[in-house]
């Protein structure tokens, strides 16, 4: 159990760039089109997760045995990795919404009235 953080780091490292691509794309579209596309962008993130599992099953399936021999199922590793990824995405959304709320022109205008 004490090794789970290290194992997660090893597990997440190769899939980080792919998922980061989905995260940044989602943030870009939400930043451009506003909060109304947020729901679709969550769906977009889930497409990212599905494609990650699909790609990993072709390119890195052999290394699954390392994590199993460490005592962890692959399902559990993916759940932990995607939970961390989703948490990062939600934090980025909160920062984006907070920044757009604080620095939006209408906000300054309203405040001036």
């Amino acid at each position, binding site marked *: 159990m004490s*090794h789970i953080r290290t194992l997660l780091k090893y597990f997440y*490292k*190769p899939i980080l760039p792919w998922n980061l691509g989905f995260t940044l794309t989602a943030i870009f579209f939400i930043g451009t089109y506003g909060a109304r596309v947020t729901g679709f962008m969550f769906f977009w993130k889930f497409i990212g997760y599905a494609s990650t599992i699909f790609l990993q099953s072709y390119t890195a399936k*052999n*290394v699954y*045995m390392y994590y*199993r021999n460490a*005592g*962890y199922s692959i399902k559990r590793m993916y759940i932990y990795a995607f939970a961390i990824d989703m948490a990062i995405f939600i934090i980025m959304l909160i920062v984006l919404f907070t920044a757009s709320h604080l620095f939006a022109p209408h906000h300054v205008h309203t405040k001036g009235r």
Partner: protein
Amino acid sequence: MYTLKADSIELAFDGRKILRDVHLSCKQGEVIGLLGRNGCGKSSLLKIIFGTLTAAHRYVSINDQFIHKGYHDNRIAYLPQHNYLPTGIRLDKLAKILVDPFSWDDFAELPIYQQNANKTAGQVSGGELRQLETMMIIHSRADFILLDEPFTHISPIQADAFKPIIRACAKRKGIIVTDHQYYNILEVSDKVILLNNGCTKHIIDNEELVTYGYLSSINR
């Protein structure tokens, strides 16, 4: 003292029954050699015990307690035929997670580890990587070790060096080992089981390997 039991295992691919009447047991302190022709289901049996292959029917237990996934809580470790270490991470870091702290000193003294500890899996030769992967599994935390072709892809002298390590490991663990290098299996094992027509045959006399058509004759 733990006992691993695999019973009533049935496996079929495309309607062809690969395993149909399989039962074996392995105690801690024992090395079981598993022999059989190509495609008879040796690797499949090990994967079923480990929990990574779904069988039509299976009963795997340790001390009569049903085990759903053998790898959960480090009960069983498995050396697959393929390389399994992630690339891009130093071997010493990977080893520290798999190797049992009680066995660490023995593992760290191995020349193959000392020569390659600071390298990654991609920086060592195929044979060296195979040795390291095998040693990590043998020195892992698991109570039971499944070795799928540990003598393949390594030189004869290294295979000879493995055997005392497997024997030493068997003082604390139960080991099931399979390989086509049957003479190594016969030498290292306490008991030999032959997989023949989907069934396990417990071999008492090595001459039975000829009788069941696994060997043409017993010689080395």
